[in-house]
């Protein structure tokens, strides 16, 4: 059984729901179910919600009484278990070029893990990663599911410029930089698929609850997809289980 969340005010207009401080699939699912239910039943009360690993922050309209919102949400939480059906998820296939001209930390990364670059790529493309939530940068997915053999502490000296599309590992996490940014993660490759397009609404094809798989592509394929994605809106393919 999951311990129900605690409710606290977070400034004048927000309520913070906090679960036990740990990263766990059961908590993630509990947050997601309540978030969905709140959007269905209480959407008139808030502007938006921000889910994270073990919290859900609700930004209320200025005229809403926070305590009343908390009471209603607590009632909703108790009803939740009975009603909620499992939601179908989407698995996106993300093409990644692991060529060392794009994944400039790949060789050093493999060396630090006493593996060949092929082994690193194979482990990285084997897993299905779950999007826990988006944050840090516009469109940046916090992914769960990185193989333990690929855990490596962040670089001691962060890079000043990590390009948009960089696929990287930092500590126990892997992710994709949706926009250019400074960053301390190890760059293993780059994807030609844009992860953040502010002129689209929503601006990212990813949502909390979606899954992704990385698949290795050649430098030629990378250039080809990149050119096409720059001239027209492009979504990645959906993964087919065979």
């Amino acid at each position: 059984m999951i311990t129900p969340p605690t409710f606290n005010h977070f400034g004048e207009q927000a309520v913070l729901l906090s679960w036990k401080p740990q990263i766990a699939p059961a908590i993630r699912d509990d947050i997601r179910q309540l978030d969905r239910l709140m959007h269905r039943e209480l959407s008139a009360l808030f502007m938006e919600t921000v889910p994270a690993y073990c919290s859900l922050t609700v930004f209320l309209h200025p005229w809403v009484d926070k305590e009343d919102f908390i009471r209603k949400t607590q009632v909703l939480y108790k009803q939740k278990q009975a009603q909620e059906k499992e939601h179908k998820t989407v698995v996106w296939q993300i093409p990644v070029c692991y060529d060392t001209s794009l994944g400039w930390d790949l060789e050093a990364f493999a060396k630090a893990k006493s593996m060949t670059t092929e082994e690193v790529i194979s482990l990285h493309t084997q897993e299905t990663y779950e999007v826990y939530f988006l944050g840090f940068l516009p469109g940046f997915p916090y992914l769960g599911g990185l193989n333990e053999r690929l855990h490596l502490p962040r670089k001691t000296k962060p890079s000043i410029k990590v390009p948009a599309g960089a696929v990287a590992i930092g500590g126990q996490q892997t992710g994709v930089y949706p926009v250019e940014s400074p960053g301390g993660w190890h760059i293993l490759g780059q994807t030609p698929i844009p992860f953040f397009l502010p002129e689209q609404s929503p601006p990212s094809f990813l949502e909390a609850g979606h899954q992704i798989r990385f698949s290795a592509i050649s430098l030629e394929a990378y250039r080809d997809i990149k050119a096409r994605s720059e001239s027209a809106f492009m979504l990645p393919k959906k993964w087919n289980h065979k």
Partner: protein
Amino acid sequence: MIKVISSGIFSSIQDQGRFGYRKWGVPVSGAMDAFSARLSNQLVNNPVEAAVIEMTYSGASLQFLCETLIAITGGDFAPTLNGRSIPLNSPIVIKTGDLLRIGAARYGLRCYLAVSGGIAVAPILGSRSYHPNVAPDYRLQKGQLLPIGESLKKTSHNHAIVRIKKAHFEDPAIPVHEGPEFNLLPKNMQSLLLNTPFTISNESNRMGYRLEMNKTLTAPEIITSAVQPGTVQLTPSGQLIVLMRDCPTTGGYARVLQLTEEGVSRLGQRHSSYISTSSDTSNCSTLRSSCFFLSAR
């Protein structure tokens, strides 16, 4: 249309913020001093959320290619119209060809220009606010032409100069609430946080202000969770950061305090200067949660 003759140090288009996209990691943005931006709109009969021009440290020079009504609010940047001094916080009638020059800050850090009808660039994700990753083109550039929206009324019957509460620019008190991790701090650190003088570091921008202090406070990292403008983070190495309008949507540092909305607007007008905290709660008696002050001197 408005022609940008010169842009000033850092001038951008801002409204009241970009809402509804935080779950995709899109920052809220919007006017740093939302209070002054709203006032400027009210003076020219705009909806309060209309887009205005925010100028930082020093202002822009702008030429109007049409008749309109404007208002300048926020810090005093010594504005002139065709070489003549004009008042702040008052509607001003503009004729085609008029040249508006906004000078350097005499007090305050940011000044706002509202134009009747609003700055009518295309909204991006529901907002016209500049952000380097979301709406990178909405920073003013020399030679640029800015479109103005349709206005309901081109003239104002209210020519009074609005007098702004002195507190907005001068009061050292910046009201705050306890943040989600405040109670995890040891008691002595809670009291230090609320009684230690701070200075605003030069490494401060629209994303966040770094505070410097001579006491050592520290808090362990948290599992990444939501943050918002006004969240005061405390890092393991002892850095205090007040997140401002362009901040990310999530963060991994302890959220020890939360500025009130008014507090964020006030801090948006503060230079690097000496500020301190005190636990004077008198001005927040109507608020239910306990209230403290980060205060600027």
